Structure formats: C-alpha cells, structure tokens
C-alpha cells in the first residue's frame, strides 16, 4: 500500500500547488536523493550503464554555463541526479578513474537544462568488446527462416484456396476468415477451455472441416445447382467474410487473443533462433502439405479432384460424383485453413478478428503467383511470398513496404510469366 499512499499524497500536493509543475513520487527503492525541478530549479539526471549492467559508484561532474561544477555519484542502480538553479547548457563528465576497467566511453555529454523540467543526460559507455550491430548474414538467415515459416503457414491456407478455385472457379474471399476461425477456435478450446494443445488442435481442424462441409451442404452446393454465376458467388463470399469478421468481433471482441498464454520456448539451430512452436508448426505444415500433394497426385480422389477442376461435366460423365468431390474439397480446404489459422496464431502469438483480412491478399497473391488453380503453384507461391515479406526489410526496403514489396514482386513476375510460376500457357484455337 506504500506506493499508493505516496501517490495519493502526491495528488494532494499537486492539487494544493497547481503550479508545481514537475513532481516525482519515488517508489521506496528509488535513489536516495530526490530531485524536484521547480520554477527556479532544473534537474539533470541519468543512469549510467553499459549494454550489460548498471555502474554504481561512478563519480560525475556537472559543469554549468558559469563554470560552476557540481558532483554526483551513481547509486546502486546506476542513477544519479543533480539540481541546478540556472538554465542553460551543462556539461556532464564522468570521472574515468571511478570507472571499472575495459570500458569505452566518450566520457561527456552536453545537455540543456530548463526550469521546471528534468534534463536527462546520457553518456554512452560500452564494454570494450561491444559490437554495434548484429552480423548482416545472421540477420539474413534468420529472416529467411522466418520467411519460410510464414510461407509454409500461408501455403496451408492457400492450397485450399487454390483447390476451391480450381474445382469450382470460385475466388473465396471468406477463406481468410476461415483461417481466422482456426485461430479463434483454438483460443476458445485451448486458452479458454484449457484443452491440451494437440487435442485442441485436432478438434479445431475437425470443426473447421465441418464448417467447410456444412457451408457446401447448405450454401455452395444449392447455389451451384441454381447456376449462380461465379462473380455473384464471389460477392456472396464477400458477404460471408463480412459476417464472419463481425461474428468474431461479437464473440471475441476486437482484441488480440492468444491460443496459449505461455511464452514459447526457444531453440537455436545454427544462426537461427525460433520458438519450438515454430519448428513444430513448420514440420506439421510440411507433413500436411506433403500428404495433400501425395493425395492429389497419387490417389484416385486426388485425380478426381483435378478432373473436376478441369471439366466438371465430363468428370460427372466419367462417373465421378462431382458434388461429393467438391464437398470433400471444401471440407479439406477449410480444415487446412483452420490448421493454418491455429498455427499462425501460435507462431505469431495471437489472432484477432481481422487477422484473416490482413493475410487475404497474401493468400491471393500466393495462389496467383504459383499459377491459378494449381495446388503446387500455391505452395511455391506462398513460400516466395513468405520469403519476400520477411526478407524485404533486410534487403533494404522500408519496413512499411514489406507487403507492398511482395505485391510488387507478384506484379513483376506476372509480367514475365503471365501464367504464374507453375501455370501453363493455354492453346488458342
């Protein structure tokens, strides 16, 4: 209750003397001497520290404009302060002899003291082996790893987007909300209801898959039957995305929520440091993507999927139950999106009602970059987008252009290869 009483006291003081313009109430553990600037005094204060630790017991000389010097010694927490009664430039100088060995410092700094204010004085002190910045290559490697991670997570979602586009021709603008749904369900199940992460994750996938199944059952299939145009369907997905976003906001609020509260543990592989969750998430992504790839290429169902995406009428004429395949695609895509969302929420430490919206464009960019409707293209596209997003700041783009850079790369690439990376040109005539 100590600090609180202090605050109350301060408040009272302030109310009584409204012109006492700067006032600090120090917690009990603060420096012994207190400097209160007033109408006629100013404070000069600071803390001496290297990049490693504070420096107690160092002598400091503060020389005023009139040549008058005041001395101070840093306390146990490295803090010092001096009260002066004249405004103007003060030089703050360290007494080198009181410094421990092996330190590098310029030794002095000049600050401008004004009444009614505390002028902080910063004297840079570094240990001798201090390096001013991290190795560029380490940073590059680390960023590449982050990019790969982002790319894999995007891939999980964009493969589904691409599959849906491929089989039904639909650009699903609500896909990103499904990614969000994955994260938010994860929050409910794991954070709120305390499920085990793995069990919860599985449940998230099942539930998200169910939403896909359900959506197709009650909405997309009937609409296909009625022959609704693709642009109309696209607008329906925009409506759905709006509704879903605000559902999230309704149930979860506009804040970021986390799937697990714990701080993730970290592992270091060579120059790359990442949370274990990230490593696992990348592993899961690779596994799942490989499984999807295998299924698409090598299994009957996969082939059926590609056939439906090529020519649904003919697929039906080949004995494929087109509706079933599309339903399956919806289910799997949504499950993948859900998984992606969950992993995304884990890896980026949180999910929010509009997180999906934020990555929607990246998803579309990835899908297009790889060649529309080709699932493997989506994978490659995602990884490229992920890498570009994470690497462009390292390579000198202004930070707030990192998405813009990804999009720019997309545009440039399309100019060179209009059909996308893995797409093939079409035959005319």
């Amino acid at each position, binding site marked *: 209750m100590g600090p609180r009483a202090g605050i109350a006291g301060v408040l009272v003081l*302030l109310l009584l003397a409204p012109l006492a313009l700067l006032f600090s109430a120090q917690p009990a553990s603060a420096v012994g001497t207190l400097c209160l600037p007033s109408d006629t005094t100013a404070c000069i204060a600071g*803390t001496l520290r290297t990049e490693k630790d504070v420096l107690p017991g160092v002598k400091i000389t503060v020389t005023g404009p009139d040549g008058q010097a005041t001395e101070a010694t840093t306390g146990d927490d490295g803090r010092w302060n001096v009260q002066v009664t004249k405004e103007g430039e003060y030089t703050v100088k360290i007494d080198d002899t009181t410094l421990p060995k092996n330190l590098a410092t310029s030794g002095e700094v000049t600050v*401008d003291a004004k009444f009614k204010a505390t002028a*902080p004085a*910063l004297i840079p002190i570094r240990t001798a082996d201090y390096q001013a910045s991290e190795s560029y290559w380490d940073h590059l490697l680390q960023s590449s790893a982050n990019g790969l991670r982002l790319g894999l997570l995007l891939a999980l979602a964009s493969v589904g987007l691409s599959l849906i586009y491929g089989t039904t021709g639909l650009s699903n603008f609500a896909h990103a909300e499904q990614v969000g749904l994955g994260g938010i369900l994860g929050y409910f199940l794991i954070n709120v209801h305390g499920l085990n992460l793995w069990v919860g994750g599985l449940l998230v996938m099942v539930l998200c898959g169910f939403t896909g199944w359900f959506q197709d059952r009650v909405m997309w299939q009937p609409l296909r039957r009625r022959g609704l145009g693709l642009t109309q369907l696209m607008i329906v997905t925009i409506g759905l995305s709006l509704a879903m976003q605000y559902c999230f906001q309704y149930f979860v*609020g506009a804040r970021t929520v986390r799937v697990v509260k714990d701080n993730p543990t970290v592992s270091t592989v060579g120059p790359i440091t990442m949370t274990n969750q990230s490593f696992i998430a990348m592993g899961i992504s690779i596994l799942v993507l490989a499984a999807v790839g295998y299924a698409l290429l090598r299994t009957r169902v996969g082939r059926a999927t590609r056939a439906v995406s090529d020519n649904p009428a003919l697929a039906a004429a080949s004995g494929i139950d087109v509706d079933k395949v599309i339903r399956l695609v919806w289910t799997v895509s949504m499950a993948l999106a859900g998984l992606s969302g969950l992993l995304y929420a884990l890896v980026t430490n949180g999910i929010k009602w509009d997180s999906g919206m934020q990555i929607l464009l990246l998803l579309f960019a990835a899908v297009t970059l790889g060649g529309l409707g080709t699932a493997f293209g989506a994978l490659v596209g995602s990884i490229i987008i992920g890498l570009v997003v994470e690497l462009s*700041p390292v390579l000198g783009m*202004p930070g707030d252009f990192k998405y813009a850079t990804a999009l720019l790369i997309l545009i440039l690439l399309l100019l060179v290869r209009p059909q996308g990376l893995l797409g093939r040109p079409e035959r005319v005539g």
Partner: protein
Amino acid sequence: SSDSNNNASAKSSDTPAAGSTSGSENFTNDKCSGSQTSADSLRVGGILPLTGNLAYLGPPEIAGVGLAVSDINAAGGVDGAKACHDIQDSGDSTDMSVSTASAGSLVASNPSVVIGAASSSVSLNVVDTFASNKIVEVSPANTAVDLSGYSPYYFRTAPPDGIQGNALGTLISTDGYQKVAFIVFNDTYGTGLRNAVQQTIESSGGQCTYGCKGQGDEFPAGQTTFSSEVGAALATKPDAIVVLAFDETKQIIPELKSQGWDMSKVYLSDGNTADYSKDFEKGTMEGAQGTIPGADPDQSFKDRLSGWAEVGEGKPLADYAYGAESYDATILAALAAVKGGATDPQTIQKNFAAVSGATGGEECKTYADCVKLLKDGKEIRYAGPSGIGPINKQNDPSSAFIGIFKYNADNKNELSTTVQGSSS
C-alpha cells in the same frame, strides 16, 4: 472487450468492490429519445469505437460519457434541462464511411456536444463536418499534434503527443538507455508520438537505431506478423525498445521475448499500456514501463465507471483507458452549458475553456460543486479525475499528468510515478 466476455461474470463476482459500488449507488442510463435536441436538453452525442480495431476502447469511453450524464442528471441536469447520451459508432480508420455516416446522423440529431472520436484519424475525418455545423466536438483520446487548434469547435481532454512523448523520452533517457529502437505502427498517433520521444532522447545524447523518423520502418496498422520488425530492431543492438502500437503489442511482446529480449528494457505508451495479466505467462512483462496520459484515476472513480457500465452496458469494465477523459469531456461541456445558460453547441463552445479554468477561478471537483459555484456567479476551474490543466488557446489541455507505469510479475501495470507536463 474481448476478455471480459468470457471473464465478465467471473470478474464481477470475485471483485466485491465492483458489485458493491454499483449496488450502493443508483446509476441511470439516460439514452436520448428522438425528440430531445440541444434546444431543450443537454444532448451528448458520442462517436466512439463500437466496432473495428479500437473497439476495445469503446466500453470505458462509453462508461465515461454515460456516468457523466448520470451524474449530471443526478445533480438536477443543466438548469433543469435533462442530459442524455446518444452514442454512435466511429468504426476505425479502415472504413471511414462508418464514421462519416455516424457524423451525419449526429449532426442531424442536433446535439449539444459530441464526444469523440478515439482515433485521431477518425477525428480528422469528421471534424470538419461538426465544425461547419457549429457543433462542439470533444475528443477524450485524440493525441495527434495536428489537431491542436484545428478548429474553434474541436476540443480535447487528452494531452497532445508532445507532452506524453516528452515524458516517455525523459523516462527512457534518465534510465540511461542510449540506443533506442522503435517498433511503431504507421498511424497518426504512432508516428507523432515516436517523433516526440525520439526528439527528447536525441536532445539528451541518445540515439535512435530503428524505426526512426524518416526511415520508413513503421509497420502498417493491423499487421499480424512481427518477426521481421523485431528481428530488424534487435539487429541494431538497441539498449531499449519502445513499442508504440495498439493491440498489436500482444503479438510483439512474445516475439520480443522469444527473440531473447529483456523485458525491463521495453517501453510502452497509452495505446498499449494495459493490463496483460490474462494474455501472457506470469513474469513476462516484469519491469517493462509505460506511460498513460492523465492521472490514474482513483479506485473509487474506476469503480463508479465500472458500476455504470454494468447498468448501462451490461457488464463491468476490464479497462479504464480514457474513461476519465470521456467523463471530464462531458462534464466540462455540461458546465459550459450551465455557465452560458443554454445547452446549444455555440454556448458550450464559448464557455468550454472558461469552465476548465482558462480564465482562472475557484477549483471544484464534482459537477454538483461546480454548478453551485457557477450559480454563485464565480469563475470556476473544474478539476476532474483526468487531472488535465485548463484548456489553452489551442483547445488542448494546457498541462496534463502523465502516469508512468511499471509492470509487475503478474503483467499488470502499476503506477510508479506521475509526472506533469505542459504544452508550452
């Protein structure tokens, strides 16, 4: 707000204070009817974030307005004219049509004063509409420097970023950190505050290593991955990191943590100095510091706010940011109406600065007290829970408290110091 949804019931039951306060005092939720206008009542419009990215700031601000209206009516209204509130959505800056529409219907409803908006960007969008219709707009949360003296009809009860930035910069410098990296989002508020902090740090001999003014390293608001920002900031080997963002902070902090950063070298500001006890593992934030403009209101005021929220919005508050400012904004407007003897916006505009003490006067702390003084024909200075100084020529608070908070092991922000800064 998000968490309160699930924890609301739990919280209200295990915080006896909240329950008892709301029980002991009778709050009223005085929504405006369609026919009440500034001609016959104090119609307090609100343009506050009910949806969008800042929606979590909505509840305390609504409660501030609602509680003020309730208090005003409890004290007999404005010369007998009832006060009422009509709060509309401001959305966020990604869909301005929301705020534009709300501004339109607020103007049409003929209010005495409009409280809002929270985000400076949104305020800039609607400020002209209110001004040209001669309606007073009082923002409880705008801190953008550009809004200083924007129009005679725009006031605010939150201090402009210069004051907070100076306080935060001083805090960092006196802590001895020489190289500072900013992880800042690209928003009027973020960049404005960053500039102020950076200036203070540099003038005391410090140095900005990342996210500095003019480097373009701000991240777009609403971004969801921060590994590259955090990585890039750490690559410059800063001594301390300042995070200026809204809710994105919840993702930035764990990222910092997982990249091995010592949290006691993290500084936050009003956009994100919040209670993170529900979001992070114990001890995560320990030692981190942040500033919030406004004296941290005392617990009894917070309890009253929360109590009103339970009556008016159905659940207690989880957060109090800008609640006091909203309260004061409303009370000041009401006092201005009392002083001028009418509830129309022009009268309020003329007297707003005066009741805040710009022309000197006797200090009073509650609406009822102040009205009494005014009735006696005295000049007053209303000193409400937000602790701002009188409104200056720029229609900004001339001085304000900046609370300095330090996080404890529970990831709760505790007030450690309050400094007062002035906009000179």
